[in-house]
C-alpha cells in the first residue's frame, strides 16, 4: 500500500516537474464556513510537500517491508500495520494540507498514532507510561500550535497558506502579532520535534517496536515541526526574535542531547538522543533562516537515521531482544550485511565525505559560521560529540568479542536486510542531491525548494574560507574516530554499569595507559559528569517534573473539587444557595 503510494508520489513528482508549474492546489470540498470564515478541505502540492511526501512514502515503504520481517511473530501484527498505515496517512495529510487546519488534523493524527504505537506492547506498564508521556508532551505542544492557528485566524481572517503568506508579506518585520504567532507555532514544533524543554518524551518513546522508532521517531513525525516552520518561512522571516530563540533552543538541544548520548548504554536510547541532537541541528538551520538547508538535512537524516534504527532493530532481533550495548560486541563477523549498512549510516551521520550527512551538515556549519562564530563552535562541538558516540556505539556493538553468553546472533532475513541496503545506498549517495558549488555542483535541492520555501539570502563565503571550513571539521572528526577506535577497540573499554561507575573508574586509573587517562580526565569525567548531570539532574529533576508538575497541580485541584462532592444533600443545598446569593450580589454590583 505504502509502496503504491510512493509510486503515485513519484509519478506526481515527475508530472509536476514536466509540467513546469510551481504548485498545485486540490480542493476536495468546502469544509467549514462559520463566523465569517471559509476553510476548504484542500491539498497543496508544491516542491516542499513533494519532497516530504517522497521521504514519507519512500522511507515509509522500506520500513513497512522491514516490519514484515521484524514483526512476523507478533500476535497483533495486523493492528500494527493498520496503525502504521494510519500514521502514514496522517503524516501525508499533514504535509499535503493547504491550510493550517488540515495540517493540524494530520498533526493530531500522527500524535495519536504515535501514542498507539509507542504503547503497542501495552502489557508493560512502563511502555504505557512512556506512551502517555509522549502524548501529554505532544498535547502541550499542540496547545501552542492551536493557539498559533487561532492567532493567525485572528490576524489574517484566514488559515489558508497562500492567503496568509500573501497578507503577511505586506506586514513589516517584527510586528508583535507575527512574533506571537511564530512563537506559538514554535511551541507546537518544539513538542513534536522534541526540542528543549519538551524533548524528554522521545527517549522514552523508544519503548515502541523498533520499526516504529525508525518511522516515527527518526524519519517522519519528529520532522513535522521542521516542516511546519519551513512551510511558514515567510512568517518566520518577519520575526527575527523568534528566529534567535530557535537558534538558541536548537543549539542547546543539539549540544545537550549529544552529551547525554555519550553515556547511554541502550542502543536505541543512543540513537534517540542522537535524533534529538540532529533535530537540534535542523533547528539551528531554521533559526539561521536557511530553511532549505534544514529540509535537506531532514532528508539525509531520514535516510541514515532510519537506517540506523533498522540496523539497531536487526541487531536487537539477532540478540533476541537484548538492547544493552555492553552485552553486545563482535557482531561484525556474524552479521556482515547489518554491519556494513550500519557503518555507512554511522559515516553519514558523522559527516564523512562523500556520505550524505557530510553535505547537509557542512552546509549548516557554513551557514552557522556566517552568522556567528559562537554558534559555529557549538555546532561543531555537537558534530564531534555525535561522531564520538556513534563510533562508540559502532565499535561496542560490532567489534571486539561477543560478551553475551548463550546468544547466537545470526544475520536477519532478506526481507529485513534489503531495505537496509536500499537505505544504505541512499545514505551514501543522498548527499549528491545538493552538491555545493565548491565541489562543482549547483545545489539542485535548494534550488528545487526555492519556489516553496523562502530562505534568507546570504552573501556566501569565499572559496578559501569554505575549504577551511570543510577541512577543519573533517580533520577533527578523523581524530575523534581514531580516539574512539583506540578506546573501544584497542583497549576494549566497556562502559560500566551505572551503579559501579566510581569504583570502576578507580581501577582504570591504575591499570590503563596514557590515552585512557586522557579519556578519563579530559573526557570521561567531565563529560561523564555532565552527561550524568544532564540526564539525571536536568532531565529527571527539572524538565520532567516541570512538565509532570503542571499535570500534578491540575489533578490535585481536581481532587479538591472532587472532595466538594460530599454526597451530603444539605451541603448541596447550602452550596446552591450560596451560589445563588453570590450571583445576586455579583449581578447587582456589576
Amino acid at each position: 500500500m505504502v509502496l503504491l503510494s510512493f509510486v503515485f508520489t513519484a509519478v506526481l513528482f515527475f508530472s509536476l516537474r514536466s509540467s513546469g508549474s510551481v504548485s498545485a492546489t486540490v480542493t476536495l470540498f468546502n469544509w467549514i464556513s462559520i463566523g465569517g470564515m471559509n476553510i476548504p478541505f484542500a491539498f497543496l502540492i508544491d516542491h516542499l510537500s513533494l519532497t516530504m511526501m517522497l521521504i514519507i512514502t519512500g522511507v515509509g515503504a522500506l520500513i513497512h517491508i522491514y516490519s514484515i520481517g521484524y514483526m512476523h511473530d507478533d500476535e497483533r501484527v495486523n493492528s500494527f500495520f493498520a496503525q502504521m498505515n494510519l500514521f502514514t496517512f496522517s503524516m501525508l495529510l499533514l504535509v499535503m494540507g493547504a491550510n493550517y487546519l488540515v495540517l493540524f488534523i494530520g498533526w493530531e493524527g500522527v500524535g495519536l498514532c504515535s501514542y498507539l504505537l509507542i504503547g503497542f506492547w501495552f502489557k508493560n506498564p512502563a511502555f504505557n507510561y512512556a506512551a502517555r508521556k509522549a502524548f501529554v508532551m505532544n498535547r502541550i505542544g499542540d496547545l501552542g500550535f492551536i493557539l498559533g492557528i487561532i492567532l493567525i485566524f485572528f490576524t489574517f481572517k484566514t488559515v489558508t497558506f497562500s492567503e496568509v503568506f500573501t497578507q503577511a508579506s505586506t506586514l513589516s518585520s517584527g510586528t508583535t502579532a507575527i512574533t506571537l504567532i511564530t512563537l506559538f507555532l514554535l511551541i507546537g514544533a518544539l513538542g513534536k520535534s522534541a526540542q528543549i524543554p519538551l524533548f524528554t518524551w522521545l527517549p522514552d518513546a523508544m519503548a515502541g517496536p523498533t520499526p516504529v522508532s525508525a518511522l516515527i521517531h527518526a524519519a517522519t513525525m519528529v520532522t513535522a515541526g521542521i516542516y511546519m516552520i519551513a512551510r511558514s518561512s515567510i512568517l518566520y522571516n518577519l520575526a527575527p526574535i523568534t528566529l534567535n530563540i530557535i537558534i538558541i533552543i536548537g543549539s542547546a538541544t543539539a549540544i545537550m542531547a549529544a552529551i547525554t548520548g555519550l553515556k547511554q548504554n541502550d542502543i536505541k536510547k543512543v540513537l534517540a538522543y542522537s535524533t534529538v541532537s540532529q533535530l537540534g541541528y535542523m533547528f539551528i538551520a531554521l533559526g539561521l533562516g536557511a530553511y532549505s538547508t534544514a529540509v535537506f538535512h531532514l532528508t539525509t537524516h531520514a535516510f541514515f537515521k532510519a537506517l540506523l534504527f533498522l540496523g539497531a532493530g536487526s541487531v536487537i532481533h539477532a540478540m533476541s531482544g537484548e538492547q544493552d550495548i555492553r552485552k553486545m560486541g563482535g557482531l561484525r563477523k556474524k552479521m556482515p550485511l547489518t554491519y556494513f549498512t550500519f557503518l555507512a549510516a554511522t559515516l553519514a551521520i558523522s559527516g564523512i565525505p562523500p556520505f550524505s550527512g557530510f553535505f547537509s551538515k557542512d552546509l549548516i556549519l557554513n551557514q552557522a559560521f556566517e552568522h556567528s562564530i559562537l554558534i559555529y563552535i557549538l555546532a561543531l562541538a555537537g558534530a564531534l560529540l555525535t561522531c564520538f558516540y556513534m563510533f562508540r556505539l559502532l565499535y561496542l556493538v560490532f567489534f571486539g568479542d561477543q560478551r553475551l553468553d548463550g546468544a547466537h546472533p545470526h544475520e536477519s532475513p532478506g526481507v529485513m536486510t534489503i531495505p537496509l541496503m536500499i537505505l544504505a545506498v541512499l545514505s551514501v549517495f543522498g548527499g549528491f542531491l545538493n552538491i555545493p558549488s565548491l565541489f562543482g555542483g549547483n545545489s539542485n535541492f535548494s534550488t528545487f525548494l526555492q519556489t516553496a520555501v523562502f530562505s534568507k539570502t546570504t552573501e556566501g563565503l569565499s572559496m578559501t574560507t569554505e575549504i577551511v571550513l570543510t577541512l577543519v571539521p573533517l580533520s577533527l572528526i578523523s581524530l575523534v574516530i581514531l580516539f574512539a577506535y583506540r578506546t573501544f577497540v584497542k583497549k576494549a573499554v566497556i562502559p560500566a554499569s551505572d551503579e559501579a561507575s566510581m569504583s570502576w573508574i578507580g581501577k582504570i586509573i591504575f591499570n590503563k595507559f596514557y590515552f585512557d587517562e586522557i579519556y578519563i580526565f579530559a573526557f570521561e569525567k567531565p563529560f561523564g559528569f555532565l552527561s550524568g548531570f544532564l540526564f539525571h539532574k536536568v532531565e529527571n529533576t527539572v524538565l520532567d517534573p516541570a512538565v509532570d508538575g503542571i499535570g500534578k497541580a491540575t489533578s490535585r485541584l481536581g481532587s479538591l473539587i472532587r472532595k466538594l462532592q460530599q454526597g451530603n444533600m444539605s451541603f448541596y443545598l447550602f452550596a446552591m444557595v450560596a451560589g445563588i446569593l453570590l450571583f445576586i450580589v455579583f449581578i447587582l454590583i456589576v
Partner: protein
Amino acid sequence: MSALIFTTVLGIILLYLGLTKNKTILSPVAITGLLITLILSLKDWGLDSKYFHDMIIFDNFSIAFNVSMIIITIIIFLFGIDYYQRMELHVAEQYALMIFALTGAFLMTSFSNLIMLFLGIEILSIPLYILAGGKKASFRSNEASFKYFMLGSFATAFFLFGIALVYGASATFYLPEIKIYLAQFHGNLPPMVMIGLLFIVIGVAFKVAVAPFHFWSPDVYEGAPTLVTAFMATVVKTAGFAAFYRLLCMGLLPLPVPLEKALWVMTGLSLLIGNLAALRQTNFKRLFAYSAIAHSGFIMLAMLSQHDTSASVLLYYTFVYSLATVPLFIIFILVKRASNGLETLYIFQGLYKKKPWIAVFTTILLVSLAGIPPTAGFMAKYQVFVLSISQGYLAISIFAILMAVVGVYYYFFVVREIYTESDHLHPIVVSKLNAGIIILCGIAVVVLGIFVWKLPI
C-alpha cells in the same frame, strides 16, 4: 404539533401495552412510534407554525432539535430491547415515562411563553425523577432519585420566583413581549427584573448542570439506572440547551450586561470544575457526569458568542456529543455486566483482547468526545472556538482550549484501560444489534467529522 400529540398518545399506548405483560412488543412499538413522530416533525419543516395563541412555535430551530432528540431516543430504545429483557417489572412504565419526558423536551425547544417553558421543564423532570429511582430495591437508585427530585424542586422554586418577578414588572409571560418591555430600559434594568431574570436562568442552568448548580449531576448520574443516565446525559441536555438558547438568544437579546457576565462566570466555572474533577474519577458514570459538565461549558461558550451561526453550532455540538455518549453508555453496560456490576474504569481492561472491533469503535467514540480530529467531536469543538474567537472572546476561548486539552487526558484513561491486559476473562456478550448500533454511531461520528460540518436549522 401533530408530532407532539402523537408522542403523548404513544406514551399512553405503551402504558396500555404494559397491561399485556408482553415485554417484547414494547420496544418495536416505541421505535415505530418514534419514527412516525420523526416524519411528522419533519413535515413541519420550514412552516414556522404557531399554535394556540403563540404558546408554542415550531420553527426550524425547534424541529431540528426535536429531530436530533428523537434520533437519540431511538438509539436508546434500540438498546432498550436488550436492556429491559433482564428487567421483570414496570418495563412499559419506563418506556412510557421516557416518551413523556421527550414530550416535555419538545415543549422546551418550542416554547414562546414562559408557562410552556415551565411546564416543559416539569414534564421533562417528573418522569426523570421517577426513572432515576427505577431500581426500586437499590438504595443508590433511591438516593439518586430523591436527590434529583429535591434539588430539582428547589431550583424550580427559584425559577418560579423569577418568573413572578419578571411578570410583575412586564405583566406578560410572552417572550417577545418581555423582550419589548426590556428594550425600554436600554440595558439598564431595574434590580428587581434583573434578579427575576437571574432566577429564571438559574432554573434552566440547573437542568443542564452548569456549575455551580451542578452538584446533583455526578450523584444522580451514578445512582440512576445506566440507560436513564444515558437519556439524562443526552436528550435532557439537548433539550435544556435548546430551551436556554431560546430563552436567552431569542427572548432576551441583547443580553443585559450583568446577566451576561454572570453567565460567563458560569461558563468558566463549568469548564474548570468539569474538566478538573473528571481527572480524578475512577467511576465511569461519574467521569461522564463531570465531562458532561465540561461539555456544558463548551456549549455555553457557543451560546454566549451570539452570532447567526450559534444555533447551528449548538445543534451540531449537542447532537455529536449525544451520538458519541449513548453508545459509550451502552458499551459500559455490556462491560459492567461482564464484571459483576462494578462501575470503575478498570472493568474496561482487556476489552481489546475480547472484542477488538468494539474496542476500536469505543476508542473512536472516546476520541470524538475528547475532540481529536478527524472526528465530529473535534469539528464541534473547533466550531465553538472559531465562533467565540471571531466574536472577540479571546481570553475565555483560550481558557476553554486549555481545558479541552485537559479533557483529552481523562478520556484517554478509558482508552488506556481498553488496551491494557487483564486477568479476569469473563466473556463480554454483545448482541448483533448492539454491535451494529455501536459501529454505526462510530462511523457516523467520523463521517460527520469529515464531511458534515453543519446541520441545517
